[in-house]
């Protein structure tokens, strides 16, 4: 029935039925009157003529019914009839009904939940206009393809490029935010004011940045993210125009950004203007690299052309300012939206496919069960055919049944989705971009509808097609015992079950690979000891902490408070915590006795500013030389401690102790620092990549150009005694100590170092957990499918088994026969599954860690697991065959 006809008959049914009935009645009346006129003319009196005419006409109700049917309004009636009938049939087999509805509800729920995450993160528009012309630009460096630009560099590119309609600069900006209450640390960005225009960003309320916001002396302003607006201001639209304290400076809130807004690798809690022209670093060629760029390509310019142009600008600048281009070998250009979601796409799609596969397995299971039921219902359907039901009508009847199941299952699925979503949000690692405003929109609902419809078709079509195909007259004659379409039916079921096993194996193999990667990664040594270590991030307000001395004073006061705390073993400060997300700080250095041949080859190292007890608190071992002491202060020659990785890479020929290196950690010129110690390697950025060289300098000797950095990013780490008071108790004391020293300091949440370590595994744990549970479900469903097909086979062959037993076959032989059948299905499924898994292996390669995506061990292990579970299902099913009594079996036919 096509849609238009359906709507038309609906319309007739509900709006025109009364009118049609009136017309029909009038027509009957007219007919009877005309007939009576005729009879009257033939000599009857009027009353008798009318009576005769009415009798001749017969039942007017039947007449109306037949006419209505001819008018086509009946398709809806028939559908309602079918649905009612299905409900009655389903009520008679509550077991099947429950299994079907639960399977579909879970399958549809999981798939829709996964889709809603995919939708929120990947599919939703980004709120940028014409986003495929937006490019995200990094400085390509010898040691990092995604490095930063300095401010003068940005201004040169901006002023010289002709490929872009504009270039904006973006810097990470992690200030404290306060109105009346406690200051809060937020993670945002500073952007050149043209950024909003270049991105084509519209504000949700208020306005975005305009060129004037970058002018020297402009009123300081700030934009809020949707998340901050919702969390901190309860979505109050009156915040526009209000003042808020950002890093000790009053800024006016001018607008709120849409929830879809995100930038690659940067949090965007707040957005403030960068004001490049008035920045003191504007002309400091050798100043810190802290900017990324985003540009809008001019029409008809390709990214390759833009890349070539920026590169030639870079080469000119490099000739002009050779010192400022140490280690900078090019630019890296990537599409903006691609860069935002690149890391998570593979993970999300894997999870989505896993959910969809589970749903598919569930549907095939139901199709299998429906096939068996159809077999049992053959006689009923044969009778219907004999009574004049057309083939189309029969298919419709059977489809109506799966439609009813799918609609109920789908509606329950939405409830499951809602619950699943809540669980999912708890599990989701926070670094999924744009996940904050995770919601069900029309796309998700449309998706749910399509999935439900597909489920109906998959579940219902096979049995319907098969049944209507078989010769039902034969069935009637044979009394409905043998299945006329039996051969085809069991063949179809075999295919279905093998397909299920194959799909389950693909999922299991994926889960196995993820698990092996996860196990490998979590056994990696991070280079520090996270037990009983608490960490807290804080930032110091700019107005009070203007130079190194004020920061040192803060440290001294804090140290004296912390040392008085009971249960605290060691505590120290560090500028960037290992595994802290989205923070990088590195410097270039040279050995005066071995200058690099080309300036691009100048080595770099992670750069951390610490206090003496940091290593002890973190349990980072000293390998040679000494730790820092409080005497390593501004009056003494500068010293540094390096990691064994740096020694291995750059001091293979001699001991580094006592050597001076030239370290480029300030805006002027590299300064000489003496190496006094060597410590163990630490994984600073993530657990996946091997430890890079580290260099530590004492807080008391920080160069004045490092002060803004230190103000912005500071972590306090404290090793506690587990016996005293417990972690929560110590955490509140740690916070209190920081506040006592200076209440204007923005203090973040206290996190145990073990949690920081866990967060580094969070996204892998997330996908492992989801794919793992989906493959568990797939395994269960596939085993259930196998069980069903085997036990149905046994049921069909009860007579055959009885004959065999009567002829002297042992039960062992019967069992072997059944197992052979099961093993055949299993073998075919596993073989197909392995082939598919190997074919798809490349897709999961990006999620592997030190495990080949074709890891034979994982593949073998999951095949064995699947085999065991499936044979177990076979065994349980075959126990029924063992109980066949030959006498009963033969008599029942």
């Amino acid at each position, binding site marked *: 029935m096509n849609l238009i006809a359906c709507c038309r008959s609906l319309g007739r049914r509900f709006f025109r039925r009364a009118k049609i009935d009136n017309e029909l009645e009038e027509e009957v009346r*007219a007919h009877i009157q005309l007939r009576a006129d005729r009879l009257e003319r033939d000599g009857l009196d009027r009353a008798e003529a009318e009576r005769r005419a009415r009798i001749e006409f017969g039942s007017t109700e039947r007449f109306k019914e037949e006419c209505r049917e001819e*008018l086509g309004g009946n398709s809806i009636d028939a559908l309602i009839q079918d649905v009612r009938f299905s409900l009655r049939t389903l009520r008679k087999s509550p077991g099947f009904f429950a299994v079907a509805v639960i399977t579909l509800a879970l399958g549809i729920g999981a798939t829709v939940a996964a889709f809603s995450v995919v939708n929120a993160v990947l599919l939703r528009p980004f709120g940028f206009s014409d986003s495929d012309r937006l490019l995200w630009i990094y400085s390509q460096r010898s040691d990092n393809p995604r490095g930063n630009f300095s401010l003068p560099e940005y201004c040169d590119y901006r002023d010289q490029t002709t490929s872009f309609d504009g270039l904006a600069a973006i810097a990470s900006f992690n200030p404290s935010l306060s109105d009346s209450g406690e200051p809060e640390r937020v993670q945002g960005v500073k952007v050149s004011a043209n950024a909003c225009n270049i991105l084509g960003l519209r504000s949700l309320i208020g306005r975005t940045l305009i060129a004037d916001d970058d002018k020297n002396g402009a009123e300081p302003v700030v934009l809020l993210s949707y998340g901050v607006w919702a969390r901190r201001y309860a979505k109050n639209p009156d915040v526009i125009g209000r003042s808020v304290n950002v890093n000790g400076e009053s800024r006016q809130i001018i607008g709120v950004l849409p929830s879809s807004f995100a930038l690659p690798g940067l949090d965007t809690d707040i957005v403030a203007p960068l004001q490049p022209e008035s920045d003191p670093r504007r002309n400091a060629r050798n100043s810190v690299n802290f900017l990324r760029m985003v540009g809008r390509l001019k029409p008809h310019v390709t990214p390759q052309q833009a890349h070539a142009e920026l590169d030639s600008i870079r080469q000119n600048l490099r000739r002009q300012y050779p010192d400022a281009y140490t280690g900078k070998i090019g630019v890296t250009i990537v599409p903006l939206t691609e860069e935002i979601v690149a890391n998570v796409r593979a993970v999300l799609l894997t999870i989505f496919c896993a959910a969809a596969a589970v749903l598919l397995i569930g549907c095939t299971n139901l199709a299998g069960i429906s096939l068996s039921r159809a077999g049992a219902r053959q006689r009923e359907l044969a009778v219907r055919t004999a009574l004049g039901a057309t083939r189309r009508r029969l298919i419709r009847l059977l489809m109506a049944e799966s439609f009813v199941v799918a609609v109920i299952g789908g509606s329950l699925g939405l409830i499951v989705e809602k619950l699943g979503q809540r669980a999912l949000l708890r599990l989701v690692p926070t670094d999924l971009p744009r996940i904050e405003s995770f919601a069900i929109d029309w796309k998700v609902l449309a998706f749910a509808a399509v999935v439900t419809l597909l489920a109906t078709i998959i579940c219902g079509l096979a049995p319907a097609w098969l049944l209507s195909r078989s010769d039902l007259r034969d069935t009637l004659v044979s009394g409905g015992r043998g299945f006329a379409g039996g051969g085809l039916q069991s063949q179809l079921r075999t295919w279905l079950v093998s397909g299920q096993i194959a799909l389950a194996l693909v999922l299991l193999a994926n889960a196995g690979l993820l698990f092996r990667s996860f196990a490998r990664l979590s056994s990696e040594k991070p280079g520090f000891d996270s037990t009983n270590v608490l960490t807290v991030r804080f930032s110091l307000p700019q107005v009070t902490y203007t130079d190194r001395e004020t920061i040192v004073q803060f440290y001294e006061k804090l140290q004296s408070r912390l040392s008085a705390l009971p249960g605290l073993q060691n505590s120290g400060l560090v500028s960037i915590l290992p595994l802290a997300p989205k923070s990088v700080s590195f410097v270039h250095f040279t050995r005066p006795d071995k200058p690099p041949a080309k300036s691009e080859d100048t080595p770099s190292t992670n750069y951390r500013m610490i206090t003496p007890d940091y290593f002890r608190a973190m349990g980072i071992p000293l390998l040679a030389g000494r730790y820092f002491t409080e005497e390593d202060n501004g009056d003494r020659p500068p010293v540094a401690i390096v990691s064994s990785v740096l020694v291995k890479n750059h001091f293979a020929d001699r001991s580094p102790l006592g050597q001076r290196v030239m370290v480029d950690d300030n805006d002027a010129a590299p300064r000489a620092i003496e190496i006094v110690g060597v410590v163990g390697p630490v994984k600073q950025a993530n657990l996946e990549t091997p430890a890079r060289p580290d260099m530590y300098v004492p807080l008391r000797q920080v160069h004045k150009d490092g002060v803004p950095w230190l103000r912005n990013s500071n972590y306090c780490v404290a090793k506690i005694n587990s016996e005293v008071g417990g972690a929560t108790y110590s955490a509140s004391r740690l916070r209190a100590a920081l506040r006592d020293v200076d209440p204007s300091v923005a203090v973040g949440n206290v996190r145990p170092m073990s949690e920081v370590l866990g967060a580094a595994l969070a996204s892998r744990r997330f996908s492992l957990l989801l794919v793992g549970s989906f493959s568990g479900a797939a395994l269960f469903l596939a085993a259930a499918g196998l069980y069903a097909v085997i036990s149905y086979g046994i049921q069909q062959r009860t007579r055959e088994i009885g004959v065999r037993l009567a002829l002297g076959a042992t039960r062992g032989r019967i069992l072997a026969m059944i197992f052979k059948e099961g093993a055949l299905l299993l073998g075919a499924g596993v073989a197909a599954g392995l082939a598919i898994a190997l074919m798809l292996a490349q897709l999961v390669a990006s999620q592997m860690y030190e495990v080949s995506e074709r890891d034979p061990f994982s593949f073998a292990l999951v095949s064995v697991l699947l085999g065991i579970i499936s044979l177990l299902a076979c065994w349980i099913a075959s126990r029924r065959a063992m109980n066949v009594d030959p006498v009963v079996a033969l008599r029942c036919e």
Partner: protein
Amino acid sequence: MSDEAELLPGTLDLLILKAVSLGPLHGYAVLARIEQISARTLFIEQGALYPALFRLVRQGLLKTEWGKSENNRRAKFYELTAKGRKRLQEETDWWNRLATAIGTALNARPQET
């Protein structure tokens, strides 16, 4: 009524189209017209007439209009559409061919087989 012929399946529609082709008729008049043009050998059951009429209307072969009957009663008149006229032509040709074929077959003599 021993000479009353049973209708072959599918011929009712054809007869209705033929009856209406001579001018718009209301339901009862269709019955009467069929009786008349078949020289009173074909009788249509009243119950079967209207479903057939509605079917033909739905197929677009007939159109309807309310009007006054010859003895001044309000009744629904059925009229042939262009599509209906074409269908009548086709069905008539087909019927004639079939009738000739069957007639020839039934009249065949032994030596001709």
